């Protein structure tokens, strides 16, 4: 059992006692509560400790001695009621002050205590004994106090009485006592001014405001998350297209190089024989360019050791064309057409203005529009000049500018052809080419028959 008394109650009792010129007594009002401490240890055996805590909130001094009992120590219930009135139910003990005596319950105190226990119906009624001990020359006066619970066994009677914050509070924390503040004035003031701090539910207003700010921040954050996700996806798509375009450019370069080489060889060969037969594989003719009856394997950006024949490639291209539609919103690949005909396929989305990273480095658009706009279908003119420039820029941006320009210069004359010829190729990814599909189609004509016309 533990007991506590607030500092002001204790000092009030001491004040009353010290100022009395005789013994002094009164009642203690307060509360008794049970505290249960459950301690859990590694051994999984939890032990519960029950502690009874007596809290003394007030004291009610008696005006004089023998006010509720007679010479024989018999307690009169009427006098008790007239003293306590409606505070009777709050009585948890009584106290007595006597100077220069032992810290032991006296004969009459024990008799009274027994009767009070019965009359008040408090089984663990406590008794607080104060005594003032003075030295002979009155130089030192000591106030001693002991809290008894006389209804227990003889050897277990004294309880420690703690007074919170009686000590050096600069080094210890100032403890807020659980003794409730029952002052009427305090309650009144708090009620008056409480509306400034508390809302109708009793929650502090500041807390609500802060919570609102927090919620708003959370919402915004969620929205931004969504936006980030979308832009990331767009970026991903563009990155894919850029990669494809790069592949196309590389392929075209190889083809160009290959054609030049063949041309030179053909020219060398022509000098020895008739050139007519050998003009077929002239790159300039789009029709011939379509079939590309070159003995050598076409350049392709694949690493396959067995490159298929070009006819196979073309047939593959055609057959693949519909299925290899780009994930972008670009239009289907246009059919191979004669040079100068409109409807050049679009190599890919042209306008991609992503305000995000600069990795793509599309010089076409520098807009910071976060929303991806679907690219307009590539509609070039007959010669594809405008589209050419776009293509060039789209595909070759990552290369050096010089190189790009060179490419442009180099390919400017043949670019038209390339465009028409390469029309079949651009969407074919390297992986497809590398797979080396068997030539299911007959060479020359059949597969392209429809297209060639």
């Amino acid at each position: 059992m533990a007991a506590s008394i607030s500092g002001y109650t204790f000092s009030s009792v001491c004040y009353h006692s010290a100022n009395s010129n005789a013994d002094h007594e009164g009642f203690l009002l307060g509360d008794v509560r049970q505290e249960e401490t459950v301690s859990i240890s590694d051994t999984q055996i939890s032990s519960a400790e029950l502690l009874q805590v007596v809290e003394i909130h007030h004291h009610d001094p008696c005006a004089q001695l023998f006010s509720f009992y007679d010479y024989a120590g018999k307690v009169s219930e009427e006098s008790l009621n007239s003293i306590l009135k409606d505070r009777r139910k709050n009585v948890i003990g009584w106290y007595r002050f006597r100077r220069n005596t032992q810290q032991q319950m006296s004969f009459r105190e024990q008799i009274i205590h027994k009767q009070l226990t019965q009359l008040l119906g408090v089984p663990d009624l406590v008794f607080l004994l104060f005594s003032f001990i003075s030295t002979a020359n009155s130089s030192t006066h000591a106030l001693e106090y002991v809290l008894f619970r006389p209804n227990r066994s003889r050897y277990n009677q004294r309880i420690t009485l703690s007074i919170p914050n009686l000590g050096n509070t600069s080094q210890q924390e100032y403890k807020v006592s659980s003794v409730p503040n029952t002052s009427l004035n305090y309650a009144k003031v708090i009620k008056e001014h409480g509306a400034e701090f508390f809302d109708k539910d009793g929650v502090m207003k500041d807390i609500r405001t802060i919570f609102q700010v927090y919620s708003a921040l959370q919402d915004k954050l969620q929205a931004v998350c969504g936006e980030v996700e979308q832009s990331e996806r767009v970026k991903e798509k563009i990155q894919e297209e850029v990669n494809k375009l790069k592949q196309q450019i590389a392929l075209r370069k190889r083809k160009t190089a290959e054609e030049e080489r063949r041309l030179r060889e053909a020219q060398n060969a022509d000098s020895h024989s008739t050139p007519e037969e050998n003009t077929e594989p002239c790159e300039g003719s789009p029709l011939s360019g379509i079939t590309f009856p070159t003995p050598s394997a076409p350049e392709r950006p694949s690493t396959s050791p067995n490159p298929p024949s070009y006819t196979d490639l073309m047939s593959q291209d055609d057959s693949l064309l519909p299925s290899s539609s780009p994930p972008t919103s670009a239009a289907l690949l246009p059919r191979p057409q004669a040079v100068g005909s409109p409807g050049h396929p679009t190599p890919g989305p042209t306008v991609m203005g992503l305000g995000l990273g600069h990795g793509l480095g599309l010089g076409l658009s520098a807009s910071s529009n976060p929303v991806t706009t679907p690219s307009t279908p590539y509609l070039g003119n007959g010669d594809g000049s405008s589209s050419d420039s776009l293509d060039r820029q789209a595909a070759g941006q990552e290369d050096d500018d010089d190189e790009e320009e060179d490419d442009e210069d180099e390919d400017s004359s043949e670019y038209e052809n390339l465009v028409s010829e390469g029309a079949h190729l651009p969407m074919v990814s390297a992986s497809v080419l590398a797979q080396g599909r068997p030539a299911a189609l007959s060479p020359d004509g059949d597969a392209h028959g429809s297209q060639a016309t």
Partner: protein
Amino acid sequence: MNNMSPEVALHRISPELRPLLCSVVRNGRVGLDSTNCLRVTDLKTGCTSLTPGPCCDRFKLHIPYAGETLKWDIIFNARYPELPPDFIFGEDAEFLPEPSELPHLVHWDAGNPECLLQLVKELIQQYHHYQCLRLRESSRLLFEYDSLLEDPNYGRNMEIYAGRKNSWTGEFSARFLLKLPVDFSNIPIYLLKDTALDPGEDVALLSVSFEDAEATQVFPKLYLSPSIEHALGGSSALHIPAFPSGGCLIDYVPQVCQLLTNKVQYVIQGYHKRREYIAAFLSHFGTGVVEYDAEGFTKLTLLLMWKDFCFLVHVDLPLYFPRDQPTLTFQSVYHFTNSGQLYSQVQKSYPYSPRWDGNEMAKRANSYLRSCQSGLLRCLFILSG
């Protein structure tokens, strides 16, 4: 201040309470051991320290009981002297008398100076009951108590102190203090008058301590009031028998009682015998008697003459005369020793029998003195020469 004389205590106490304390310290005899009166110590005040004195209203009262001294705190209030006191019963924390058994408390009258003393007596009575109840913890001792209680000689004058049980060993001890019903009234007064203290009542108390509940360690002790002790020849003269193992008080106490009674009788008889002896000597030696102890009859001085040589004879009668032989001391009236004393010679062996009556002893002494006169005196003459 611990050992306070009663007067000092009375001086320091608050004036309104003085009469009450007066009767306690001056006339307070409580219990069997009335030679030890009640003592007051540790006078303190319940008023503030600024109150001018004398204002003491609380003190410790020392009460002899069953061989122990009870130290009870008595608490008054000087500001309210009409109110009855409160008590703290020292180490007897479990002693809680029923207030209804204390009429002087219930009807406390501060105007009656004897009120406090009477209240203390009532409390002692209750304390006695309390101690007797505690005896129930040991059946053996309870039996002792009950058996003594039945005997009217002892039952009414008994104090029991059931000592503190030793909680470690579980031992239980008790002390019985019994007033022995021995008649001391016939002891000659002269034996009693030498005591410095006011003798008060002559009493013999037997204290029997049981150190264990089975009565295997029993220590009896006899306490006599100082005058009786002196009359009987001092504490060393009286030995009581040891408590027989397996015996009980109801047998032992009468035994001691008888012994004491015999001793007293012997002393009384001795007195009479001495008186008889002296009377006989007086009649035999007549005018030769210089002086004699007329109260206790312990000394007799004779002046004898032989052939113009005078000498004194001192007769000293011991306490246990006639068992012990009187001592004769011859003293010269003329001669001094080197140390300035009169020359004297002690004679202890001479014909004597305790069975002779006083007259016979006087006659025999007379004849002895005559017979040894010549030889003795010759010695004296030569030595003094």
